[in-house]
């Protein structure tokens, strides 16, 4: 039962990632894409935490920890970018 719940949760979260991909793909502004990518990182952490229990690999929690810790770096790098009005072409 527990296995079923965990794997179903992982699948739902993964499908969420799939929906997020559309936003990364379509944009239209760089900020939209960036936010979608950051949301992607958060959902990846959730999937990893679920997988850690489902697959039985506690080390995956370390991977999730790294993603949470390092997520800020990309946003800092992005916030330092000059503002451009790059449009979807």
């Amino acid at each position, binding site marked *: 039962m527990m296995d*079923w719940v965990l*794997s*179903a949760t*992982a*699948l739902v979260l*993964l*499908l969420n*990632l*799939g929906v997020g*991909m559309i936003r*990364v*793909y379509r*944009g239209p502004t*760089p900020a939209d*894409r*960036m936010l*979608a*990518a950051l949301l*992607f*990182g958060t959902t*990846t952490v959730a*999937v*990893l935490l679920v*997988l850690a229990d489902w*697959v039985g*690999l*506690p*080390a*995956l929690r*370390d*991977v999730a*920890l*790294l*993603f949470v*810790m*390092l*997520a*800020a*770096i*990309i946003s*800092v*790098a*992005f*916030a*330092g*970018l*000059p503002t*451009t009005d*790059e449009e*979807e*072409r």
Partner: protein
Amino acid sequence: MIGLAIDSVLALGIVWMALQTVRSDSLFQAMLMFIVFGLLMSLAWARLHAPDLALAEAAIGAGITGALLLVTWRRLQVHGPDDSNGPRLMTRWLALPIACASALLVIIIGWTALQLPAVPGTAGELTLQRLEDIGVSNPVTGVLLGFRAYDTLMEMAVLLAAWLGARAVATEFRPGVLPGPAHAEVPLVGALLSLVVPISILVAVYLLQAGGSAPGGAFQGGAVLAAGGVLLCLTGRLEAAAQASALERVGVILGLAVFSLTGLIVMATGGPMLALPGVWAIYLVETALLLSIALTLVLLFAAAPGLRRAP
């Protein structure tokens, strides 16, 4: 059943992301696709029961590559040619036949590998049996430092060579200086730094220590420590110096030097070269490797011979 569905979604997502990374029209979109591709890859490694690789992917992908790509894009915007916004994908008529031939080659190799009978007593099995002799219970660390120490040593030499090469090129073609980050003085940046940088040191040491018995080790720890340094560079707290200080020179070769010296001392006392004499030697070498890896990665990120504190 659900497992199969998860794997299919992951596989499809990875292939689609890879395709979009290569053929997207805008450079920025391609870069973000690549960052997301890294996230999916680490999930794939997790599904394949390879947490070591998932750790490395997370540390390198989230900590260094993403920031490196974004900073490069920024340099292109400021200094690059006007048409730097699009990769100008040109399709040649040869592309399709070559792609099909390559795919066929991969299928043939994979099929042949699947047909090979399993040989008993391969190196992997022998290694797992003799892991106790090394003194660490994580097979990856055991193989890297116990059974393939020479390989690991050469990887450090490759990293050093990469840095030397980057230095040689950087004096010729200095990457354009970026205008200082606009957010350097925002109070939130200081708060973020005072949280993330100490935690990155803590996590790096934790990964090094855990590497003996669980996934982790010098490479992952070094990448995490480097991510802390990258953040300091990004927020303008560290900036490029014209010359490497003596400490930095020592730090860059520390891993290679400590590893070689330990291996040679063992040889001088009658053992085989690089056979590390116990768990303490493994941790000594790993610590030196971690420091060298982290420093080299930060220097490569900054594309500078050395770093100094910003005034």
